[in-house]
């Protein structure tokens, strides 16, 4: 009997896919595992293998054509077999009859966290909402839709024990038991298809793989004849994808959002810090100990006052103005990044500012920042001066219009009055949201910061 080739459902949200290339043409002999065609989803181009052997009898979808997932795109069978002229309608609910949770159709590659759910341990959740086998598939429509979870793959205890004993991941096995349950025979067939018995493994490696849940089929053996050794399992363990912690997940989400939705542009200047550093040393000798950071931040505050649009933000074709400067200081921690916020920074004098910076930095390192002290910033300074960098660009914090990236101060040969001299130079780059800040405004703003930093009269006044 001819077997239908279906458009696989490969992505979590993919509703349809496009065949970009057929590797076989009608009449070709097909072996199991042969590449039939390539498809393009919203993320990638993927190759689709045949589950069947026989002859490609018919194709319904041409290259470049897009069809819903689970649609029949062709037939494989014996030459001369009768097959339908038209593809059957794509099933509305492609999930197995027992999976009565329509939202729970994520592809069970559970090691990748579900994007919208930054849980700390997004392992394949055994959803309590998954009904028992005997529950009718037509669950009441009024039932609350559970949060999207990774689909639970039904597998018999015996099959699971075999999979566990064999140290393989059963989630890609097709189940042929009642209700699509994976049964022992399915696992055995899979093992045989994957040539499991031809893949030698040392007993110790197998024990480790079982204990750590490593799929040995995904491990290349480095021993004689490809034997999988303990070191191979250890390597697989080291390479095993790790779900992010909550902070990292939030960072990932926020920065992706910002970087993919905000049109950034960058302007870099080189600031001569020689005199300011000199002044700082002199002040220190008189007992006034200022950090370089406080000078930079004060310079930024003064510049922002002059260019309020840099302190604003874009929202839905609107400029949102801020009457205060809440200055964020990107602070690196071991496990990520936090941005403590100096509130109403424009109201603080230099020593108050310094005091705030010290307090907030300490709290950040100790993990004691209150939520209020980490939100509401209108502009952020990211200072990597202590990390020996020539220059860098930063991604704008969501909710702000620009960010200043401060690089290291380094002795450089520069031309002054026609002579080559050595000066302490520091590069700064402002990343700006082009929707509200034009290039010239960005350039003028960053030059204003630079000018302030190089204006010794200003600093003498502010520190006196």
């Amino acid at each position, binding site marked *: 009997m001819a077997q239908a080739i279906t458009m696989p459902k490969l992505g979590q949200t993919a509703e349809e896919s496009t065949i970009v290339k057929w590797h076989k043409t009608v009449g070709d002999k097909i072996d199991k595992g042969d590449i039939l065609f390539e498809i393009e989803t919203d993320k990638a181009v993927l190759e689709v293998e045949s589950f069947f052997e026989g002859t490609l009898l018919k194709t319904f979808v041409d290259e470049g054509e897009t069809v819903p997932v689970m649609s029949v795109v062709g037939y494989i069978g014996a030459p001369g077999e009768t097959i339908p002229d038209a593809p059957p309608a794509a099933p509305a609910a492609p999930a197995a009859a027992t999976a009565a949770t329509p939202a729970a159709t994520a592809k069970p590659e559970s090691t990748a966290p579900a994007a919208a759910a930054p849980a700390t341990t997004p392992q394949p959740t055994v959803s309590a909402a998954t009904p028992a086998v005997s529950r009718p598939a037509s669950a009441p429509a009024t039932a609350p839709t559970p949060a999207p979870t990774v689909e639970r793959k039904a597998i*018999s*205890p*015996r099959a699971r024990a075999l999979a566990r004993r064999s140290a393989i991941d059963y989630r890609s096995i097709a189940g042929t*038991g*009642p209700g699509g349950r994976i049964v*022992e*025979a399915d696992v055995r067939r899979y093992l045989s298809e994957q040539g499991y018995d031809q893949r030698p493994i040392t007993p110790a490696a197998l024990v480790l793989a079982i204990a750590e849940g490593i799929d040995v089929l995904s491990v290349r053996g480095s021993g004689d004849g490809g034997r999988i050794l303990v070191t191979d399992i250890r390597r697989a363990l080291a390479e095993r994808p790790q779900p992010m912690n909550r902070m990292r997940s939030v960072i990932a989400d926020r920065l992706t959002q910002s970087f993919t939705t905000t049109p950034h542009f960058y302007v870099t200047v080189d600031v001569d810090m020689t005199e300011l550093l000199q002044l700082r040393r002199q002040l220190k000798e008189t007992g006034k100990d200022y950090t370089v950071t406080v000078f930079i931040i004060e310079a930024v505050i003064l510049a922002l006052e002059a260019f309020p649009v840099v302190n604003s933000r874009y929202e839905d074709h609107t400029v949102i103005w801020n009457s205060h400067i809440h200055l964020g200081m990107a602070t690196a921690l071991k496990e990520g990044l936090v941005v403590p916020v100096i509130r109403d920074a424009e109201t603080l004098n230099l020593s108050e500012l310094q005091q705030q910076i010290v307090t907030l930095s300490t709290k950040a390192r100790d993990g004691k920042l209150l939520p209020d002290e980490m939100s509401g910033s209108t502009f952020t300074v990211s200072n990597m001066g202590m990390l020996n960098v020539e220059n860098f660009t930063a991604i704008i914090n969501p909710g702000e219009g620009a960010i200043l990236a401060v690089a290291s101060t380094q002795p450089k040969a520069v031309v002054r009055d026609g002579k080559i001299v050595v000066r302490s130079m520091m590069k700064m780059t402002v990343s700006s949201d082009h929707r509200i800040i034009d290039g010239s405004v960005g350039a003028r703003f960053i030059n204003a910061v630079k000018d302030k930093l190089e204006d010794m009269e200003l600093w003498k006044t502010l520190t006196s």
Partner: protein
Amino acid sequence: MSPNFLSNLQPVFKPRKVSCGTIPCYGYKGTVKQELDAGVVTRGQAIDLLEDMLTIREFEEMIVKLRSDAYEPIQGFNYRGPTHVSIGQEAASVGACTGLAPLDYITSTHRGHGDSIAKGMIALRSLDTDALRQRVPESEAKTRKQLLDAALEDHIFRTIAELFGKEAGYCRGRGGGMHIADFALGHLGANAIVGGGVPIATGAAMTCRYLKNGRVTLSFAGDGAYANGIVLESLNWAAQKQFTNHLAKDDAFGLPIIFVILNNHYGMTGRADEEVLGVDPLARRAAGFADNNMHAETVNGMDVLAVRDAIHRASAGCRKGQGPYLIEVDTYRYYGHSLSDPRNEYRMREEEEAWRTVDPIATYSQQLLDAKILTPKTLKTLQQRVIDRNAAAARAAAAAADPDPADVIKFMYTDTCADKVPEAHAKTTLINPPPEIKRTADGMLTYRDAIKEALLEEMIRDNRVIFYGEDVADYGGAFKATKHLLETFGRQRVFNTPISEAAICSTAVGASMSGLRPVVELMYMDFALMASDAISNQAAKWHYMSGANVKIPLVIRASVGGGKGYGGQHSQTLESMFAHIPGLYVAYPSTAADAKGMLKAAIRDDNPVLFVESQLLYGEKSVVPEGDTIIPLGTADIKRAGKDLTIVTWGPAVADALKAADIIGTEMRLDVEVVDIRCLVPLDMDTILASVRKTGRCIVVSQAINIGSFTGEIASTIMAEAFDDLDAPVLRVGAKNGIAPQSHILEAAFLPTAADIVNAAKQLV
């Protein structure tokens, strides 16, 4: 020489008047002086009567005091347990037990402390030095008198220790006061089921009659029990004419049993005299069961000599084959049913005061003083000795070791069996040659003949095996499985019984306690519910409740009628109910070979076995080995080997499973293994698990309805023990969850079939 008997009853309707005779009441007029003078009792025995009554009262008052921590010797000891004290009834216990020979049997009641103490004290006094030393091997006593004192104190100690739930108690703390027993001294147990001890005593009397051992059995039971069905069944049982008439031939001998009604006038709080009974005196009960009224009389139960006299005459009569006897002992319970009963809701204070004026201890003490057998000083000394002895026993009991919690279910079963028959019982006289049991040319027998062959072989091997039930003798059983056993062994060993399923099973418990190995038949398993107390509360429990001091080697054959259109009361498959009762073995063979081998094993086993047969199978044949082939209980049998699917089943469902296995093999290409468990208890889980581990799929099948069926027990054990070996859920197939109908159309729809098993298999792949 045929033991058979063909009745030739003629219709005779000549008018006549029947007198029910007379029942003498309170006829005893003796005093201790007269009894001494007549040489009926010695001075020592006369004092012993008082000592025993004093001991009982001191014991019971200890319980009363313990309830308010007022018993000085063990102050602070927390007694938790029943408080059914017998204060006021001491003369009944002591008088009755002294009327017996020391090692005669008694059964007793929930209010049995007095009976137990009296029985033990009297029996101990009769023991020789060696026997006494065996009772108290640790004692340093030199003289017999010292040994006896030690043994008497030990008796009180073990009695109190049992009440306190101690390992050193008579029943190792498993029984308690309501189930106290000392089989070594002839005490077959107090019984907490009202009336429960009466048929057990009747069964023990059957042993005495059969073994002709000269012993008598006395059954204590209250006025309340004499309204209970099993007690009335027992009276009828004991008075059967076949024990004494021409049917018994040379063995004619009335059942040596004395039914003692301890009429204390209250069944818990129900008033015997004016409320819940309709006869006065209660001794009239006997007139309903025996033409001679069982020599019934009513005696003054507050007079130890009157009770002793009546029981003494009765036991002498029993020993001459004139039993049964029924003696009503009119007595009084000073306290309530238990100490939580304040009595004032149902009787007057004046009534109690009136009875206290005839207090058995006070009146008898006065007689001893009057007769100068005791002086006030020696009386005081005696009283003090009792107080001191009980106190010492109580202190030792309170300090004795508790049972080890790890042993909580120890003693449920014994692992012994009658693998050797004592010489005295290995000799069997056959009245006629045993019937020939014909095999087919290829060695096959019917299931029915396999049962018969097993019984024949075992009855020849061991003359303690007796067989009885309804219609089993001349008629050969309703299903002819025992035809010609009567002719072979005679009516002493094979006899018909009244239609009294409760008595059939309960008497068998008494017979097995006292030395026989009875096999009894229940014509339909449904009737096992009539006998459920006997099977569940008595047979199953006594080995454990006695702390392994008694064994119940008993086989109850019960036949399932399902599949014959007999309707709801003759078709039930009930083995699951009895598998739920710990202490019982439950076997259900599916083939003739299994039936023979397992029945032989059951008869030799020292545990009570409910042996289930199916009427659908009686005609089924299989190759049955000749001779002594035993199939140990608790061994499953793989009736068909396979690798893809296990069917666990038993009884007639095995045939359905085998049929289904063929269909599944052909239609589904699955290789089915059929495991016949053969016994529900003990269950051979190892074989089941090994099979399921191999196949990964399992269906558990029985003819029982699924609700509460043992199939669920097996399925849940498989899930717990072999979860990771399962490729599919364990399914069950049974009858529809309903009542067996008569209509054959409906019954076919009711019972499980091979097709049902095939359908279940389809759900698994």
